[in-house]
């Protein structure tokens, strides 16, 4: 194929990546975006296969076949819950490939000019770190490696030594082009990847993977400098930059900083556990999580409780409901007979917010509906949605009729902590897999959810 034509086709591929990435960042278009990007990749591969002066197709085809098989099987087989670690593994393979490309290039011509050697060294370094780091992350998520941060005294110092050593051999490689130096760089970088990721807790792994992904983009870009390919440079830079932004977004959603995640996490991870919660942990969600879960639901049942009144959040709750309704979500309110602290407490609140009477449902009328409801949104209620009143004969509130929110697809609970309600007893609802806790004052928390929905 004509080199010029190939060049333009690579540009098209890069454009497809851009369009793909753009679409990937909105729920409505994400799937299409992924397909666009895949098409771009196919184009780039085909162009490469037909364009470049390729001597032997044997290894290439073998590699493509083996790689496709493994990739496809892994992608199809994995369970939903194991996806994050799979992404980590894939990322590791990508980084590894970049490192290997650099290695082959060096072997082909160890006497390359300095600038090529610099990029080879960088590509090898970053690629190898990505490789080993990603697989440690994989191990942590998969439970092979302990999810707990692995720490020991003097760790920082040792880490620093390894990092300096890696840089040193990389410098050696860049200046001499020695194959020995290459192996040294690869080895040192692999080690660095392992020691840098081990001390980070399992809950932070997604951020680490995203960051490594951004790095692997940079590695690809470096490889592009090496083989003088704009396609690689552009795509690598794209991933590098967007990955960095994404990492930043994720870190912000955790109310942390990237530095804090990568370096300062030598302390133990703080899991939210309530009094008497024992081994159970509740899943804490951000207002954005809550917003998207609600906005993409078909039906939502809102369960107000005393906390709604304490927070005086009735108006913002109503705002939330209108925002959802205007997106076509079916919204109902389930009023438990004893929610609040006086008979009719919820009626007073909802009347103040002018919620139409026909959206209010009694316990008997609404309970059969939870089964086919996407999301139950519990706002400052506790005892009235405590499943132990139904399931646990030893519970002091056993026998009280409750709202069966736990029968909905998803449960979102908005309250400030895991502390109990009026009856003073723990609520197993909070520890269900399907439950997200939004820990916030109801007025503030719901306000943030409303803003987040407006931004979807």
């Amino acid at each position, binding site marked *: 194929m004509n080199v010029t034509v190939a060049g333009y086709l690579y540009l098209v591929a890069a454009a497809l990546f851009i369009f793909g990435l753009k679409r990937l960042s909105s729920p409505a278009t994400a799937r299409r975006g992924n397909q666009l990007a895949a098409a771009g990749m196919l184009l780039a591969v085909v162009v490469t296969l037909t364009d470049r002066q390729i001597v032997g197709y044997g290894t290439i085809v073998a590699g493509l076949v083996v790689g496709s098989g493994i990739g496809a099987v892994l992608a199809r087989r994995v369970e939903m819950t194991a996806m994050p670690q799979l992404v980590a593994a894939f990322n590791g393979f990508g980084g590894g490939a970049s490192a290997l490309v650099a290695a082959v290039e060096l072997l082909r011509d160890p006497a390359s000019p300095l600038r090529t050697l610099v990029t080879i060294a960088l590509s090898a370094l970053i690629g190898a770190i990505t490789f080993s780091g990603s697989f440690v992350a994989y191990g942590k998520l998969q439970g092979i490696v302990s999810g707990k941060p692995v720490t020991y005294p003097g760790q920082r110092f040792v880490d620093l030594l390894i990092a300096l050593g890696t840089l040193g051999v990389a410098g050696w490689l860049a200046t001499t082009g020695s194959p020995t130096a290459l192996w040294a760089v690869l080895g040192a970088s692999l080690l660095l990847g392992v020691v840098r990721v081990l001390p980070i807790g399992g809950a932070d792994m997604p951020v680490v993977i995203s960051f490594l992904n951004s790095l692997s983009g940079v590695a690809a870009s470096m490889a592009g400098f090496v083989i003088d390919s704009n396609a690689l440079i552009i795509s690598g830079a794209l991933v590098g930059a967007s990955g960095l932004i994404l990492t930043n977004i994720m870190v912000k959603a955790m109310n942390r900083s990237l530095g804090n995640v990568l370096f300062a996490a030598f302390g133990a991870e703080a899991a939210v556990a309530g009094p008497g919660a024992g081994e159970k942990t509740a899943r804490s969600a951000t207002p954005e999580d809550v917003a998207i879960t609600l906005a993409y639901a078909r039906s939502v049942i809102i369960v107000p409780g005393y906390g709604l009144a304490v927070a005086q959040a009735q108006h913002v709750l109503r705002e939330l409901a209108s925002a959802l309704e205007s997106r076509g979500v079916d919204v109902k309110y389930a009023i438990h007979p004893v929610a609040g602290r006086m*008979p009719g407490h919820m009626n*007073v609140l909802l009347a103040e917010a002018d919620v139409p*009477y026909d959206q209010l449902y009694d316990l008997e009328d609404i309970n059969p509906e939870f089964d086919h409801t996407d999301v139950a949104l519990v706002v400052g209620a506790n005892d009235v949605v405590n499943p132990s009143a139904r399931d646990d004969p030893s519970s002091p509130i056993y026998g009280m009729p409750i709202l069966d929110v736990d029968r909905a697809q998803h449960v979102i609970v908005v309250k400030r902590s895991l502390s109990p309600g009026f009856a003073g007893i723990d609520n197993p609802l909070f520890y269900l897999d399907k439950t997200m806790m939004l820990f916030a004052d109801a007025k503030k928390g719901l306000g943030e959810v409303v803003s987040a929905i407006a931004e979807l």
Partner: protein
Amino acid sequence: MRIGIPRQTAPGERRVALTPDVTRKLVDGGHTVIVESDAGRRAGFTDDEYRDAGGEVGPAAEAWSADFVATVTLGDPLPDLGPDAVLLGLLRPFDEPDRMRRLAETGATIFAFEAVPRTTRAQTVDALSSQATAAGYQAALEGATAADRFLPMLTTAAGTIPPAKVLVLGAGVAGLQAIATARRLGAIVAAFDVRAAAAEQVESLGASFIDLDVERQDETQTGGYAREVADDTQRRIMDGLAPHVAAADVVVTTAAIPGRPAPRLISKAMVEAMRPGSVIVDLAATTGGNCEVTRPGETIVHGGVTIVGDTDLVSRVAHDASRMLARNVASFIDLITDDGSLRLDFDDDIVAEACIARDGQIVHPRLVQEG
């Protein structure tokens, strides 16, 4: 100008035509205010408060002999007025034309709030509106209190109580206020009126309008007021309202046509179809009542249904009703004084239209024609 505020003598009347705070304003404006002793007591204002505000407290004769006298209503017997006297009040000129004619013979200049035009500019003088506001509010409360049901919906451990149904007939000033008050309490409110603009006004308060298939009156030609309807329309209205009345827990009726007996909207049979324990508050009781069973001035129970025909509802909010009336009075004084002394300007349409009689003659066209 000397302003006289006599104590009210009509039975049940608790209001007063001027309040201490407005008294202060008038005194500051250069007027002298003479308040009859105890005039404000039943509205919650003491003589001392008037004195503190710069007013003088004196006997009835002194209040009545001022240059300008503001009264709420006229008691029995009619006051002795000199030919130079100027009187303002809710004098019921179109309901009691004979008393008016007798009063006119004194030669005094007589202004009735009832004759103030319902124009935008006249609103500060519009005591009908201000007092109807009080009447509508109180009527809704009396209805809610007398009903044996909760107005709001309540979901409780002892079951869910559905919201009560409130029906308001006649959506003028009082009717709208009754709607608003019942809605505040959480009731489901429906309303009916013959005026075309009423539907939108009712809905602007979150209540629903009952759309009977009767001609909607364009009020702009009648100064905002409704006209009497033909007999068959009357019957169609009653038939149309019957199911709504039967379903209501509280009915507040306010329908009125100035100077005419109140339109009959609820028959005895309609009352008997209501659930025992429900309530009708008939604000039109003074002019005969919108309900056939109403006994003006009394609260009766008919077949378990309480019918409030009390005519002193406004006096039950005497304090705030007097406050509003006092502002109306002060605004009127503004119109007829110049730099603290009387200057009747009959070129001003409000002053001209509000005047019922002067120089011993009835001057209001409505009374002149009829007489």
